[in-house]
């Protein structure tokens, strides 16, 4: 994808969160602030991502994208 936020979402977040490795995050109305906190601090099995890896502006947009997303027609069951 051309768009940086879309790219981070697809190539980083979804690599775990659409494959059953991490819990489902789409269509759950997760608050953007919580998403950003998880990304920056990591959470248990989830690694943290520095600003150099995902800049603040992109992360804001990714968090908004995830927060407002609808649940896909088929998705893996939550595992955590």
């Amino acid at each position, binding site marked *: 994808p051309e768009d940086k936020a879309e790219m981070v979402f697809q*190539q*980083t977040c979804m*690599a*775990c969160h659409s*494959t*059953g*490795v*991490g819990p489902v995050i789409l269509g759950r109305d997760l608050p953007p602030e919580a998403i950003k906190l998880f990304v*920056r*601090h*990591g*959470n*248990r*099995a*989830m*690694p*943290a*991502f*520095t*600003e*150099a*890896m995902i800049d603040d502006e992109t992360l804001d947009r990714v968090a908004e994208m995830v927060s407002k997303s609808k649940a896909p027609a088929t998705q893996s069951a939550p*595992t*955590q």
Partner: protein
Amino acid sequence: MTDTTQSALPQGISPAQFEAALGQLRALLGPENVLTSEEDLAPYTKVMMSDADEKHMPGAAVLATSVEQVQGVLKICNQFKTPVWPISTGRNFGYGSAAPGTRGQIVLDLKHMNKIIEVDPVLCTALLEPGVTYQQLWNYLKENDIPLWLSCPAPSAIAGPVGNTLDRGVGYTPYGEHFMMQCGMEVVLANGEVLRTGMGGVEKSNTWQAFKWGYGPYLDGIFTQSNYGVVTKLGIWLMPQPPAYKPFCIQYEDESDIDTIVEMLRPLKIANIVPNAAVIANVMWEAAAITPRSKYYDGTGSTPKDVLEEIKQKEGMGAWNVYAALYGTAEQVEVNWNIVKQAVEASGKGKLITEEEAGNREPFRYRAQLMKGDMTLQEFGLYRWRGGGGSMWFAPVSQAKGSETKAQMELAQEILNEYGLDYVAEFIVGMRDMHHIVDVLFDRSDPAETARAHACFAKLLSEFGKRGYAVYRVNTGFMEQTADLYGKVKRDVDQTLKRALDPNGIIAPGKSGIFV
């Protein structure tokens, strides 16, 4: 925002001295590239080790974008005796992640130095900066329609070739020994000089990525798993995409079959019939890719044998699961496939599974992706096997002999079970060696279990050591103990080199047990 610089000072540095160094770093790099707030440093502190977070708390993190800036950083560090811990992409999960080896070091984060300087589709080489990720390089090859394949470790997408190679990490294709396929390096030395290894020092040379050794002492190795310089460029060889690719799996029923497997595989591997870094994964490693342990067992302690039997039956897994692949023209693949089939039949055990039979099923799918250097993070499923964010790689080197792998398996199992942990393991098959990779998984949110994991890891190192075994790589909490296994003379030579190249000891003190 709280300033943490007071609480994580490098050893022997006064707060005033540290503040003065930070001031100079801000002047050099711009204040936005010198991170000291708790919020900005938080992502650098996330570790999976049994060590306490405080032991690996950085004093600051600085971001450099050019060789000149790296030179400038080292100059300031020499002046103020402030140590730096260089990271490339910083995704060294299970080995210390992005956090420094000892408390108070400044993380020198090279993630923003991420230029793909050159990909030569004719010679099949690449020259890269440290911040380049495998995903970035993979995208570049696709976008430019360059028919070359990568070799990446399981954290593929978010990890990178430079950092992985510098810790001598491995992948799963025929180019899986990454350091072996590395060619040419640029290193900023502690005195600020820029060294190019191999043919790189020759004026107007165009063979930096073509011929590894150059002339005189061959130096690249001393900059891997070490603290003798900051690597700012790295050359690697890339594999041409073959016309045909055939990944396959061989399942074995019993734990003790490891002996038979290794005896069957070794000749195929040494003769290059099976050319890739194949793996032999045990049932828990295999299962972790697709399910948490709690689906089958919610007790504490080691997973009982009858539960493992149930997983094997219900998930269609073997006690050991070999993943390997064939590469070449269709004819070459067919010839070699027949040789593999005959070898498996002759061994009297093992069930062959082709890609056609496996279809899109995991974990076959992600294994097939990794063995062609595609991006997948499926194997991070290992971390939710028990959950809680605790993971340390215990990775002893073994001869590629069945009796040896069996002995190591039994010893590792015995020690892990003593501490209530699981033997989650795979062997990565070299020609004559095995990287025996054990993921010591524990719930890091549970202090008692974390303490047990710590004691367990120390005992694994010492008991293996008594039998002449040592790990090829280790997390930052156990670098000293591991260095001791390799003997005093080795440690002395390492230190002599350190003193010669970095007399102030400013680059990554403690890496691989090396201090000035």
